[in-house]
């Protein structure tokens, strides 16, 4: 086999691994609840594919090949661990299934169950997102640790602990019943959005790491939508992330300088992404159940409209924020509301909204200080503005944002 087709085979394996990882882990672990062993078995199968496919050619159904190979080592693994408890019937079941699922037939998509398992209330909420990134998307612990700003060893240990909890803690592999769906779905959506947020904040210019995580989050939302097409908030979340993603290129000047939303060149926004976001948002609102993500997407949709109309309807943004605060009165929402009020009614009104936020809660919250500084400056309160700028600068993590604020402060 020559070099270029060998390279092609490797790319195929990479693509199959990426697309099938979550499906295979979910399927393999749905009976045993043993996510860690399912992952081990799958990586053994991928190693086997790296050896076999360049030699024998890529099989007709690569996913089924991986499943069969992984299942064989999975049975060995589970047996080797001698987890006597409930595993004998499971092994029998797995063996029975290997007869049923032939290489050509599809197997049921269990990713949705896996997503709900990862966001189960019995699991530390801080681990919901890392677990999803690992088990559904196949990201390794080191990369996840990097994004979450903890050491790879710590992240690895936490992931192992969470998976042990899944295996031994009696967490069911099932989609929650109708009545318990809302809080559980919220946790899944939150975790996906958290991944996107980390990717978004990390984006300092050409940083590939942030871009990757944001893309993975959008991909997770697409998977979720495929599995739950009727849930309006799933579409809301996808629309929100697509709107943000559409502006990626415009967030930095050619010299890497930070460009705030209000000063972005809307010609640089991606129209196809905006249009896709709008389609999802329209479809979501036709279902008549608003929610946090739809409202946040609606706010971004108003901003996006500047590309068409040349102006921003701040009054509309303010109204969406008022609804949002009723559902989700977070620091972020209230700060965003203050900024919108300031644009719609003037800086004094915006400062009055900021004044309702408890000062004790904002000592580490950068956006509060940035908005406050901006509004004080507009009112000509130079020295108070400089103090607020200092707080915002001191809390900034992104060097480009820090640079921007330093220049603004003057």
């Amino acid at each position, binding site marked *: 086999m020559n070099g270029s087709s060998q390279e092609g085979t490797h790319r195929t394996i990479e693509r199959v691994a990426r697309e099938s990882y979550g499906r295979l882990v979910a399927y393999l672990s749905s009976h045993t609840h043993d996510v860690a062993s399912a992952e081990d078995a799958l990586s053994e199968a991928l190693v086997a594919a790296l050896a076999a496919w360049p030699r024998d050619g890529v099989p007709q159904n690569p996913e089924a090949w991986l499943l069969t190979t992984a299942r064989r080592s999975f049975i060995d693994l589970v047996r080797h661990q001698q987890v006597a408890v409930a595993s004998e019937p499971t092994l029998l079941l797995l063996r029975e299934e290997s007869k049923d699922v032939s290489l050509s037939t599809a197997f049921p998509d269990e990713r949705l169950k896996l997503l709900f398992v990862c966001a189960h209330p019995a699991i530390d909420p801080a681990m919901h997102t890392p677990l999803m990134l690992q088990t559904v998307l196949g990201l390794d612990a080191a990369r996840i640790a990097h994004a979450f*700003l*903890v050491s790879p060893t*710590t992240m690895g240990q936490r992931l192992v602990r969470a998976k042990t909890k899944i295996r031994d803690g009696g967490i069911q592999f099932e989609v929650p019943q109708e009545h318990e769906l809302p809080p559980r779905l919220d946790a899944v959506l939150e975790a996906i959005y958290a991944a996107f947020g980390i990717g978004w904040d990390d984006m*300092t210019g050409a940083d590939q790491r942030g871009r990757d995580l944001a893309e993975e989050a959008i991909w997770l939302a697409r998977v979720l939508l495929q599995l739950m097409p009727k849930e309006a908030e799933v579409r809301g979340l996808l629309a929100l992330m697509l709107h943000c993603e559409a502006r990626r290129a415009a967030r930095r000047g050619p010299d890497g300088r930070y460009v705030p939303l209000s000063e972005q060149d809307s010609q640089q926004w991606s129209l196809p992404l905006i249009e896709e976001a709008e389609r999802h948002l329209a479809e979501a609102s036709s279902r008549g159940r608003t929610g946090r993500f739809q409202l946040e997407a609606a706010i971004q949709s108003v901003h996006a409209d500047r590309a068409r109309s040349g102006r921003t309807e701040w009054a509309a943004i303010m109204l969406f924020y008022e609804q949002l605060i009723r559902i989700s009165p977070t620091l972020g929402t209230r700060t965003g509301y203050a900024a919108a009020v300031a644009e719609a009614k003037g800086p004094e009104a915006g400062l009055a909204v900021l004044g309702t936020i408890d000062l004790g809660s904002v*000592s*580490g919250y950068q956006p509060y200080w940035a908005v406050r500084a901006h509004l004080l400056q507009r009112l000509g309160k130079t020295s108070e503005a400089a103090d607020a*700028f*200092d*707080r*915002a*600068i*001191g*809390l*900034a*993590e992104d*060097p480009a944002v*820090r*640079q921007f604020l*330093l*220049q603004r*402060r003057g």
Partner: protein
Amino acid sequence: MQFALLIYESPEAFATRNTDPYNAAWRAYYNALVEAGIYVGGNPLEVPETGTTVRLKEGKRRVQDGPYADTKEQLGGFTILELPSLDAALDWAARCPAASVGAVEVRPLAPELKRRIER
């Protein structure tokens, strides 16, 4: 618990430490630490070239001009913070102006050892 942030700076950072915007970023960062109520103490160090390293080998003093480690990034100062967890310390380390032009090492202090020594 208390953490030390050990601030490692590049030659470029050392060269600009007395001028804005780097200086202004540090002022703002210090301010944020104090306002958050987590600042315990700290100090910047003079530039690495001012360092002198002493070893005792076979009873003889070996004095060497320059800092201990011969690395591109050099220790430029330290800050001690009172924080609930390593995660919180890492958040604050990421906000440190030196994090984007050098490196910030986060190390827990060793209060047990301190007590044993100072007994």
